[in-house]
């Protein structure tokens, strides 16, 4: 359970892989309220990240996950969901 926590470093790697956008983990951690749209991550990109996390952890994330506007909101929601497993 502890090893499944999503960090900003993980998220930065997922953003790069799924949406092709390069963003530094420090930037995500430093200003987690910057919206995904401002980072260049569109809704399909976020949907891809959700899909990747679901495949990785073998769980379904809440439908709200793909509607998150910011990394802060997303990381909190995902970690809550994973902790509840």
């Amino acid at each position, binding site marked *: 359970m502890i090893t499944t926590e999503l960090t900003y470093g993980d998220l930065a790697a997922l953003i790069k892989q799924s*949406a*092709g956008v390069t963003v530094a983990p420090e930037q995500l951690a430093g200003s987690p309220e910057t919206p995904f749209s401002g980072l*260049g991550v569109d809704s399909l*990109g976020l949907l891809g990240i959700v899909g990747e996390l679901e495949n990785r952890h073998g769980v379904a994330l809440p439908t709200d996950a793909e509607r998150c506007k910011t990394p802060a909101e997303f990381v909190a929601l995902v970690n809550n969901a994973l902790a509840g497993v």
Partner: protein
Amino acid sequence: MSTQRPRPAVVTGIGVIAPNGLRTDAYWKSVREGLGVLGRITREGCEHLPLKVAGQVEGFDASALIDERFLVQTDRFTHYAMAAAALALDDAGLGHEEGPEEPFDIGVVTAAGSGGGEFGQRELQKLWGQGSKFVGPYQSIAWFYAASTGQISIRHGFKGPCGVVASDEAGGLDAVAHAARAVRRGTGAVVVGAAEAPLAPYSMVCQLGYRELSTVDDPDRAYRPFTAKACGFVPAEGGAMLVVEDETRALDRGATVRATVAGHGATFTGASRWKESREGLAQAIRVALDEAGCAPEEIDVVFPDALGVPEADRAEALAITDVLGAHAKRVPVTAPKTGYGRAYCGAPVLDTAAAVLAMEHGLVPPTPHVYDIDCDLDVVMSRARPAELRTALVLSRGLMGSNAALVVRRGGGLAR
């Protein structure tokens, strides 16, 4: 709107990504020299297929030309289109990083023959290999015919009239005409053209059903239209994008007018009905000449479809003769594509780019690999022929039955 003066649609930018040249100047140099670049297909997963020879785009460094996010989100055909569009916009002096001042004044139109086959195959393999949850969301847009238009408009912030022409190979010319019409209706400029990426396993298997496809494995003999040795066509990837602009707007901002899109005609005569394509192509030429207000004798060079199928080549030569009459025997005819292949919808746009470049340089480029002509046309062979070129006729036919003709006039002389 205050006057009835027509708004001529002119070409102010050309961008090419082709097997024989990445960038317009490299493309023209190869075309002018009659360089043959057809070769064995080396793409992964294609080695065992009976289609052996094609025009492959080599040395294309997508990451140097396109933002990384577009690379992940789009197929190779869109990479080519985006790179060609960026080149065309730079050439036109419209390549601003910060986006256009009047976003609604610039539109995008592309033609596409098959969409993103390579991307689609990868995702469909995930679907059947791993399950639906492993299919990436960008599959929803990357395979699609409209992908290149959409991504170019997003990348550059163009919000003017956008569209996609899916009318077979001849759609490349129909797209240019569509752009010219948008300009005549009041849009300032349209980024228009086509690029294709048909050299991937799934895409190649789709083409194997075309009886017009050449499966000859010698690159020098695989594609020889208008000769007794004609054995079909060789496919290619890549294409070209143009900036078609309102002439007044272009002159006001000091842009170079490279050519005028003068006339276009399109007809349909049915899939692989090459004998009937004679009448359809002839009618397309008549309509294009009529719209251009151009007499047959004014045509200084013809860039034919040059399919490389004897029946189709005969029909095309007859169509040209039907409309141009005695002039058909005198006008130089050239098919540079025999040197690099047919890039489906991209092919006639590449021909249009070659026509503009030929007029600018006063040179009719040669038709590589073609030596003994088996028809009544003056096909330019071996080396480029100097000529005063004011007006060019570009022809295209699709395997599914579309025929199109485009008349373009040289630019400089028209500037006021």
